[in-house]
């Protein structure tokens, strides 16, 4: 039983299932490429995605392999503390729903920076927002690519570098040819596959304990290294301040993730935007409840064999090994088939997330930096999309290269944690204040984003995960920077604003931004028609009026 996984040999069944999934996504990409002609279709899928579709796509964009395999693994290893991540990842969507989703849809166009540029000096504010986007996307993307390589190597038996390369090529094919439309459908398909696989596997696990979750808890507890501690907090996080810091980073980080915020530009109106968040919350919440059963199931049914020791310190293989075991065990037809299905689902999961990340990063480079900062809005739409495709290719190539050079030794979990910390400390404060604080100005946005990026990255570099002589704050060396870096991000926004001259344009622009963001005027209600024509227009299609200009 020690060598549960076919670590060396190629898993033919898994590759066969991959091929089916990948063929479908490539067919969709071909279909989408015919419809991806201008900037609105490339970044926002022509704003034609419905609320329900977008809910599935958000779920597909959000639930990474780190959620699927990582959280099941963390619960397997650390019991209760693993579950803390699930709670934070889910509750975070209330911040998105109550503060951002509809406003982003109404006031933005393709990127987070569009919201800034309404009232702030375009070039510095856009550059700062693009920086925040790119830093988050870079850490998240590299973490996902390394995770992809390691998982595919373990599950399918192909070499790490080749696995990273294959992931990167598919990711770039979807984005470059199919734009947001292809990315969206890849995410929807992935969400359906992932939910189905997780629910089926959970039901099988629950069936083994007579559909009594409490029995599953008890059997998992009995199998733990330290049974008395397994269902109690503290196995992973020994410092309470660190736990709270993690909780803060997860709660506010989601609301600053550029690839999630970008999804709200793909729906026709604010109503679809808020509906999509609630669908996403239903799907993601159900998924996290199920991962609990997978993590505890792996502990209860496999015991210590739910991991392959030093090959898999993070517990990432707990769920696949569980699938193999309930399918009949290693070597059985059922066991191999289950393992292959989980491997294929994990691959689809990674592809959907990395595609979303690359398209949001391409928006920051092409729409923000190139089109509006370098070319000052004088470029053609054709040029903007052309640059976006090149940018996606370059970003993808850099991520592939770093993942291959860094290899499977890169610590994936701290990079994902870092992405959330930067999103919470740099992007979220500036975005929230741009939408709600009248006095906020360009200097505040720039200093806020910079303070957030520098403090969160700096604290991780000085922290115990990286530094051999970690910095101590509050008497502990923090692995999670958010409790310090989020307040610093807000402070940077505040000080930058009050210490610089008032910007009359920023305050005047605030009225326009606020009216647009709260009412949807100009986005779902066409201004030209309503304002200038003698009579109110007849049925106007619900599209962003500003895009038609």
């Amino acid at each position, binding site marked *: 039983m020690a060598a549960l996984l076919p670590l060396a040999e190629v898993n033919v069944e898994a590759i066969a299932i991959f091929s089916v999934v990948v063929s479908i996504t490539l067919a969709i990409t071909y279909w989408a490429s015919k419809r991806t002609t201008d*900037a609105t279709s490339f970044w926002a899928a022509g704003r034609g995605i419905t609320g329900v579709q977008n809910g599935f796509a958000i779920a597909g964009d959000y639930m990474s392999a780190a959620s699927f395999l990582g959280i099941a693994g963390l619960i397997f290893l650390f019991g*209760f503390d693993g579950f*803390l991540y*699930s*709670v*934070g990842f889910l*509750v975070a969507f209330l911040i998105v*729903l*109550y503060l951002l989703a*509809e406003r982003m849809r109404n006031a933005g*166009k393709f990127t987070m920076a569009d919201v800034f540029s309404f009232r702030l000096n375009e070039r510095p504010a856009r550059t700062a927002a693009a920086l925040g986007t790119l830093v988050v996307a870079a850490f998240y993307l590299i973490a996902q690519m390394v995770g992809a390589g390691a998982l595919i190597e373990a599950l399918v038996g192909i070499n790490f570098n080749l696995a990273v390369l294959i992931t990167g090529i598919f990711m770039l094919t979807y984005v470059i040819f199919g734009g947001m439309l292809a990315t969206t459908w890849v995410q929807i398909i992935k969400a359906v596959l992932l939910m189905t696989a997780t629910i089926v596997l959970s039901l099988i696990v629950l069936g083994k304990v007579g559909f009594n979750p*409490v029995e599953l*808890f008890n059997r998992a*507890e009995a199998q733990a290294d330290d049974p008395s*501690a397994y*269902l*109690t907090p503290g196995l992973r*996080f020994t*410092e*309470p301040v660190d*736990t*709270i810091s993690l*909780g*803060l980073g997860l709660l506010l980080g989601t609301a600053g993730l550029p690839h999630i915020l970008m999804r709200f530009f793909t729906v*026709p*109106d604010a*109503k679809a935007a*808020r*509906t999509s968040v*609630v669908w996403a*919350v*239903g799907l993601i*919440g159900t998924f*996290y*409840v199920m991962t609990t059963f997978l993590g505890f199931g792996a502990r209860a049914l496999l015991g210590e064999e739910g991991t392959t020791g030093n090959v898999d310190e993070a517990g990432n293989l707990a769920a696949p090994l569980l699938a193999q075991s309930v399918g009949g065990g290693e070597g059985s037809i059922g066991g191999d088939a289950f393992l292959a299905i989980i491997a294929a689902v994990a691959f689809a999961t990674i592809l959907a997330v990395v595609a979303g990340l690359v398209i949001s990063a391409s928006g920051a480079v092409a729409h923000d930096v190139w089109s*509006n900062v370098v070319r000052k*809005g004088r470029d053609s*739409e054709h040029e*903007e999309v052309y640059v976006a495709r090149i940018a996606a290719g370059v970003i993808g190539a850099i991520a592939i290269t770093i993942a291959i050079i860094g290899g499977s030794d890169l610590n994936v979990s701290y990079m994902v944690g870092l992405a959330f910390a930067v999103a919470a400390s740099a992007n979220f404060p500036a975005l929230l204040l741009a939408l709600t604080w009248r006095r906020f100005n360009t200097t505040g946005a720039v200093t806020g984003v910079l303070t957030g990026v520098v403090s969160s990255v700096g604290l991780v570099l000085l922290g115990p995960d990286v530094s051999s002589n970690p910095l101590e704050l509050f008497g502990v060396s923090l692995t999670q920077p958010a409790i310090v870096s989020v307040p610093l991000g807000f402070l940077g926004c505040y000080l930058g604003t009050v210490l610089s001259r008032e910007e009359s344009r920023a305050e005047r622009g605030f*009225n*326009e931004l*606020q*009216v647009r963001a*709260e*009412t949807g*005027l*100009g986005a779902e*209600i066409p*201004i*030209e028609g309503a*304002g*200038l024509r003698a009579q*109110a227009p007849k*049925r106007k*299609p*619900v599209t962003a*009026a*500003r*895009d038609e*200009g």
Partner: protein
Amino acid sequence: MAATTDRDSSSASGVDWDAAAKSPEFQELLRKRRSFVVPVLGFVFVWYFGFIALAGYAPDFMGESIYQGFTVGYLLALSQFVMTWFLGWLYLRQADRVFDPLARRAAERAVKPAGTAETVDRGEETS
């Protein structure tokens, strides 16, 4: 197509944004929204960070069994899930019933500052 040109073209559409922001309809929308969002998010912060703080500072309490090994910690964690689902549903309900009609009136006032009764056509609403 870039944001600058968008803004110019829409400003040219004749909407007086400052007047729109000061209109009683818009101010009422802001007030209604704030008086719903602020208390709800306040509750979310208290309930969520209360849970996280208990996990950090009171692990023994969280580990206490309520029913055959099902612990206080898991009960509180599940309550976070229920809270998220419930407050998501509540927001949709509030937006449909309160915010949308107010937003529509504020938008009408913005494009027809004189207060004539013509309705802004919002097109087909998707749901």
